[in-house]
């Protein structure tokens, strides 16, 4: 009897799981304007990830959703296509930061500096801005959109180089000092971009740069949301693969050991500084590449998009998903971006409606959409205290304290004194 019930409940679980995985796509296809359908659609991607089934089937399902359903809906409603592209950009950024913070354990508050560098690198040459310091006899600006692909590669490489130059002196510092120095570095970069409009106008200062040339593919102009969706999708898939392979490699193990105990790692013969530099540089080059894409997608950038807030937002994504976990970074990015762009906005519209109907009287200062810092702050505090291993914790190399905490929540009795103290 119990056996049968168990089997039954398992079947029910499986059916409901599949239902949750597939139904949202259909609903979203039928109701392309509905916000909740969109959120359910994104959630169902994670249901597919978590469901127990053949990996090939899961892969095909996810591919159908991302390559067919989403673009099909996006043709009707470009807003959600834009949101999901934004999610994709942040997924790549979060994975990049995850390599630095999660894999190697280097707290980097200046991640956004590299993102800004990539964005400005493309923007300066893809507007007429570069004409201010490069004579017209050498080249004409803006460069044509075909150059975008080259800039994507060089943006990543040069950001990596910048990361290398910054990392060389500062990576010898201890964890919390490193965090503050990277913060200072990011602020310096932002102030520079804000003020480099004189004596020679490099960045056009606080006014920002626009219009940025859209990319071209063999003469075909890529300026629709759907184009950027596919560019970002491909880049996201690439970053996921790179991060997964790195994590499973010898380098990933070296990072994990540095994160766990730097002195022990050094005495085991791991080139600590070189490995840290590598993590720093790889993270920076991810950010640089995403910066180029961001600039091309927005067609307008200014220094205010690259403040400290942005760095913390990305850190929030990594922490929420789970440090060191690639799938966690994907989930964290999706959750935070949706929270910012959809849920808070919906909520604030709802409150606005209520006060318009005279049910509530809310001063205009109190608009939930303006309080994302509060939301980020709460996420950071609550995750740190209650679930420091994140929502989708990494299975293999979880930092020992997190692991300990996780095990404690399952079975508080078994406490290994040696592990507890480390």
């Amino acid at each position, binding site marked *: 009897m119990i056996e049968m019930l168990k089997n039954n409940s398992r079947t029910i679980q499986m059916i409901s799981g599949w239902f949750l995985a597939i139904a949202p796509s259909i609903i979203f296809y039928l109701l392309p304007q509905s916000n909740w359908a969109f959120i359910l659609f994104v959630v169902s991607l994670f249901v597919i990830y978590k469901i127990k089934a053949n990996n090939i089937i899961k892969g095909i399902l996810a591919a159908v959703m991302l390559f067919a359903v989403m673009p099909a809906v996006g043709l009707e409603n470009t807003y959600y296509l834009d949101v999901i592209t934004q999610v994709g950009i942040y997924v790549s950024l979060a994975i990049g930061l995850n390599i630095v913070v999660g894999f190697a354990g280097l*707290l980097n508050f200046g991640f956004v500096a590299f993102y800004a560098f990539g964005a400005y690198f493309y923007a300066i040459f893809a507007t007429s801005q570069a004409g201010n310091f490069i004579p017209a006899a050498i080249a004409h600006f803006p460069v044509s959109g075909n150059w975008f692909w080259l800039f994507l590669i060089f943006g990543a490489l040069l950001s990596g180089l910048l990361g290398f130059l910054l990392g060389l002196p500062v990576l010898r510092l201890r*964890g919390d000092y490193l965090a503050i120095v990277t913060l200072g570095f990011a602020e310096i970069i932002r102030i520079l971009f804000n003020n480099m409009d004189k004596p020679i106008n490099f960045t056009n200062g606080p006014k920002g740069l626009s219009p940025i040339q859209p990319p071209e593919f063999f003469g075909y102009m890529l300026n629709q949301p759907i184009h950027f969706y596919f560019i970002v999708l491909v880049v996201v898939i690439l970053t996921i693969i790179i991060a997964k392979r790195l994590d499973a490699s010898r380098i990933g193990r070296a990072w994990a050991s540095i994160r766990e105990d730097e002195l022990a790692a050094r005495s085991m013969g791991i080139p600590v500084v070189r490995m840290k530099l590598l993590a720093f540089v790889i993270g920076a080059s991810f950010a640089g590449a995403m910066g180029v894409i961001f600039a091309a997608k927005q067609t307008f950038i200014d220094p205010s998009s690259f403040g400290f807030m942005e760095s913390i937002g990305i850190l929030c994504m990594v922490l929420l998903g789970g440090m060191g976990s690639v799938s966690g970074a994907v989930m964290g990015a999706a959750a935070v971006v949706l929270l910012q762009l959809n849920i808070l906005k919906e909520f604030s519209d709802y409150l606005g409606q209520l006060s318009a109907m005279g049910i509530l009287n809310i001063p205009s*200062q*109190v608009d939930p959409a303006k309080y994302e810092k509060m939301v980020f*702050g709460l996420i*950071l505090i609550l995750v*740190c205290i209650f679930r420091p291993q994140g929502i989708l914790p990494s299975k293999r190399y979880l930092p020992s304290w997190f692991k300990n905490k996780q095990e404690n929540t399952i079975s508080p009795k078994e406490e290994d004194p040696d592990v507890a103290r480390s």
Partner: protein
Amino acid sequence: MELFLQILPQSLLDGLILGMVYAVVALGYTMVYGVLELINFAHSEIFMVGAFAGTETLLFLQSMGYLTGMPAPVALILALFVALIISGSLGMLMERVAYRPLREAPRLVPLISAIGVSFFLQDFVRLVEGLWKNAFYLTSPTLFKSTIPISSTLKLPVKSLVVILAAVAMMLALHLFVSRSKWGKAIRAVAQDRDTSSLMSINVNQVIGLTFFIGAGLGGCAGTLFATQYALINPYVGFILGIKAFTAAVLGGIGNIPGAMVGGILLGVLEAVGAASIGLLTNGVLGAEYKDIIAFVILILVLILKPSGLLGEEVREKV
């Protein structure tokens, strides 16, 4: 060069005033770091809350009509007292809620939760002020209006003199408290070795709470002084100032109380003189907008070249 000498006294004075504020805020960073080895990132928001608490007190007195009747120093002391209590209690609360559960965690975790507290407080103050007054910036009433002429070009406003005097008094009081009193001894003991001092019948949690109260209270008072000096405040005023105060603490040697004072004053003066002379040095090509970079460059250079700071001791990492 002549022009430089002309502006030098004024910028030295500006630097001294700002440096005093940095020094008092830096004390909070350094004290907490001394006991917990934690960069209390939310200390900048404690400063901001103190600025709001003190200014609201003054505004309240003003709206009740008491401000014109009472002597200005009394009003200021009242405002400082309110700021001390509110910021100090907030500091203790913060320690209890966001840091104590994470005391055994790797260093990065409490640092992240400190950032969380900082972000939360910024918007929380904004929300409270928004609900209350439908605006999130405040203008502090002017308490001291007269100025003291020092030379033909240089004038010292009384309000700035008050900032300097109050900051010196607070630092002196803290120094005496930490070096002479029994509680001060307990704080030093906990900073040296938490486990051993708990064996010497020191209530470590109480001492840590007290440290947070004092550090945060001083930060709050510095906030009020800042508001009386610069008049306009908003919930985001603490962030940059906090990083600079932290720079001051690092410059003087983090964990070292006299170091924070020296570092704060030094940083304030360097920054003011640097900002004033950067235009002259580059013939007006670069202007004072690069002022904020000075502090960050100093921070990075100190951490790379001499992480122990000017007065700090070298600490070797142990296995």
